[in-house]
C-alpha cells in the first residue's frame, strides 16, 4: 500500500499550495491580475488534461474539443444567469450535458480513423458553435453576459478533481484498455477489449471535463460569444497536449501552464505577439517532436517506479 500513501502526499501538497494562494488572494497580496492568471491556468489545465485522455491515452485524434467547452460554458451560464441555479450545480449540469454531447458526437464518429476522425470532430465542434450562434436565447453573435462567479477555489478544485479522476482512470484496467486501443486497435480487439466502448467512454469523460472547464471559463469572463469557441480554440488545447508530450499527463499540465504564461507575457508585444508564439511552437516541435515530456510523467523523475507509462499501478 505504499503507493496510496504517496497519493495522499500529493494531495496534501496540492492543498497546501491551494491554501497559500487563497490566503494571498484574501489578504490582497495577489491582486485581480494574478488571481485571474491562476484561474485561467487552471481552466487550461483542465482542458489539456481532458483532451490528453482522448488523444494521449486513447489515441483518438480529436481536434474539436472547443465544442464541448462551449457546451459546458453555455449550459452552465444558462443555469446560473437565466435560471438562477447555484454555481456548483450549474457547473455539474454543464459538464454532464457536455458529456452527453460527447456521446452524441462520439458514437457515430469514433468509428472513423486518424484524419477522418479529426475532421469529423472539428466539424461537430463547428456545428455546436453555429448552433449557439443561431440561438437568440443565448444572445447569438452578440454573446451572453454571464455573472462573475469563478473563484480560485472553484478553479483549483476543478483541476484537482480532473487530475485525480483521469489519472486514476488511466492507471486502471480501463485506462490500460484505452492505451491498448491507442497502440493497436486490432490487437486490442483480439485481446477481448471492446474498443468502441472504451473509445466512447474516454471521449465522454474528456467531454465531461471540457464541459466543467467551460463552466469555469464562462463565469470568469463576464461574456461568452460563439466566436470564442472556434477551431482555433480547439487547436490551442491540442497544442497543450502535443507540446507537453502525447500520453503524458504532467506534460499536458506543464504545457498548459507554460503556454498560458507565455501568451500573457506576449500581450506586451502586440505587433509581434503571434509571430513569436508561432515561432516558439515551431521550434519546440522541431527540436522536441515528442513534446516537452515525451511520454514520461514528472513522477518518473522521482523514480517511484520506472515503468512504461500508463502502467503505473502496483499498489
Amino acid at each position, binding site marked *: 500500500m505504499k503507493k496510496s500513501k504517496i497519493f495522499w502526499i500529493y494531495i496534501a501538497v496540492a492543498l497546501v499550495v491551494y491554501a497559500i494562494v487563497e490566503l494571498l488572494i484574501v489578504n490582497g497580496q495577489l*491582486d*485581480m*491580475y494574478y488571481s*485571474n*492568471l491562476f484561474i*485561467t491556468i487552471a481552466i487550461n489545465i483542465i482542458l489539456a488534461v481532458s483532451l490528453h485522455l482522448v488523444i494521449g491515452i486513447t489515441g483518438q485524434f480529436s481536434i474539436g474539443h472547443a465544442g464541448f467547452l462551449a457546451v459546458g460554458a453555455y449550459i452552465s451560464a444558462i443555469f446560473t444567469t437565466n435560471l438562477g441555479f447555484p454555481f456548483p450545480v450549474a457547473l455539474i449540469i454543464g459538464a454532464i450535458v457536455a458529456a452527453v454531447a460527447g456521446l452524441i458526437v462520439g458514437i457515430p464518429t469514433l468509428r472513423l480513423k486518424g484524419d477522418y476522425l479529426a475532421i469529423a470532430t472539428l466539424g461537430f465542434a463547428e456545428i455546436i458553435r453555429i448552433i449557439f*450562434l*443561431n440561438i437568440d436565447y443565448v444572445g*447569438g*453573435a*452578440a*454573446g451572453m*453576459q454571464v455573472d*462573475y462567479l469563478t473563484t480560485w477555489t472553484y478553479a483549483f478544485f476543478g483541476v484537482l478533481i480532473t487530475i485525480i479522476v483521469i489519472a486514476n482512470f488511466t492507471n486502471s484496467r480501463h485506462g490500460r484498455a484505452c492505451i491498448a486501443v491507442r497502440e493497436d486497435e486490432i490487437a486490442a480487439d483480439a485481446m477481448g477489449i471492446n474498443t468502441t466502448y472504451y473509445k466512447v467512454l474516454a471521449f465522454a469523460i474528456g467531454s465531461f471535463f471540457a464541459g466543467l472547464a467551460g463552466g469555469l*471559463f464562462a463565469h*470568469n*469572463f*463576464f*461574456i*461568452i*460569444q*460563439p*466566436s*470564442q469557441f*472556434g477551431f*482555433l480554440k480547439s487547436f490551442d488545447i491540442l497544442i497543450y497536449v502535443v507540446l507537453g508530450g502525447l500520453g503524458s499527463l504532467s506534460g499536458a499540465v506543464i504545457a498548459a501552464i507554460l503556454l498560458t504564461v507565455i501568451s*500573457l*507575457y506576449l*500581450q*506586451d508585444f*502586440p*505587433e509581434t*505577439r*503571434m509571430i513569436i508564439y508561432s515561432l516558439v511552437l515551431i521550434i519546440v516541435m522541431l527540436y522536441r517532436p515528442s513534446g516537452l515530456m515525451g511520454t514520461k510523467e514528472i513522477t518518473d523523475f522521482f523514480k517511484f517506479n520506472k515503468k512504461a507509462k500508463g502502467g503505473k499501478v502496483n499498489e
Partner: protein
Amino acid sequence: GSKDQSTTSGSKGNSSKEVKIGLNLELSGNVASYGSGIAKGARLAIKEINDNGGIDGKKIVPVEIDNKSDAAEATAAAIKLATQEKVVAQIGSATSGNTVAAVQIANKNKMPVIGPSATSPTVTVNSDNSVNEYAFRTCFIDPFQGRIAANFALNTLKAKNVAIFSDSASDYAKGLAKSFKETIEENGGKVVAEESYVAKDTDFKSTLTRLKSKKPDFIYIPGYYEEVGLIVKQAREAGITVPLMGGDGWDSPKMVELAGGDSLNNTFFTNHYSSEDPDEKIQKFVEAFKGANKDQAPDAFNALGYDTVYWLKDAIERAGSTDGEKVKDALAETKDLSLVTGTFSVDENHHPVKSATVLEFKDGKQVFNSKVNP
C-alpha cells in the same frame, strides 16, 4: 508582467510627467482589421497631441494590448491595464462584445473604458436599464442608424417592400437590422425578405439570387465594408438594381475598390461624417492620416480611434486630473465637443448624441446627401 518599474507607483500615472492610456484592441484574430484600424487612428492622434505638448504638458504613453479578438483575452487585458499598468483609461475594444468584457473590470477598478466602435447599447446600459458608470462609446448606437436608414428608405426613396441582408455573426449588423426592421414596420413598410450571411464569407450569390426572387425595392445591408463590398458587386452582377443601403461599417476607401464604382451607384449609407466634407478639421485629419499611413485614406475605424483619443484628452483636461473617477465624470458631462466624426454631447445613457450624415455613392465618390439630427 512588471515590465516597466516607472509606473508601479500607485496613483494612476498621475505623479509622473506622463498620462498612460491603455489600448485594448483586436490586433490579431478574426477581426484584426477593425482593431488595427482603431489603433492606427489612435496612434496618429497620440502622436499629434504629444507633438503639441501633450495633455497639460504631460505626454501620452499608450499601452497597447492585443486581445486576439477574444472576449476572454480582452478581459485579461483590461485587468492588466487596470491593475498592472494602472492606466488612466482604456480605449477599446473594437467590437461590443470585447468591450462588454472589460466593463465590469472598469467599474471595479474605476477605469473609464471607451469603445470607439462598440455600437451595442448593452455596452453602457445593462439589461435592467442601469448605466455602467465607467463605460462610454464614441460611435452611434445601433438603433439610431437603423432608424435613420428606415426613414430614408420610406420617405426619401419611397420604398415599400424592403429586404434586409445582414451579418449574423456580428452584433453590430444585427442591431442595425433590428431597429431598421422595427422602424419600417411601424411606418407601414413591409419587410419581404430577411437574409443573413456570416462574416468572412466571400460568396453571396445564392442568397442574392434568393433575395432577387423576392422582388424587394430596397435592400438594407448593415455590415462591414469587407463583406458589403463584395455583396454590392455580386448583387449587381446578379442583376439586382434596386437601391442598397448600410451603416457606418460601409465607410472605407476600400469599399469602392471592392465593389467597383459602377456597382455602387444607387447605394447609400449613414455615417458620422464625410471624408469629402471640405470642413477643415476633417480634411486636416484625412491628410495627416494619409501622411502617416502610406497614402491610405482613413476609414470609419481610423476616424473613431482618432476621435476617441481627442475626446479622452478633452475630458482629462476638463477634469484637471487623471483620477479615474473624475475623468469618468468629465466624459459623462461632455457637451458639444467637436471632433472629426461630428459634434456631440453625451446623454444620460452614455451615448454620444450626434447627427448622422447620409452619404450616397456616385461613380465611386461619396457624395453628401442629407443630414439627420438625433
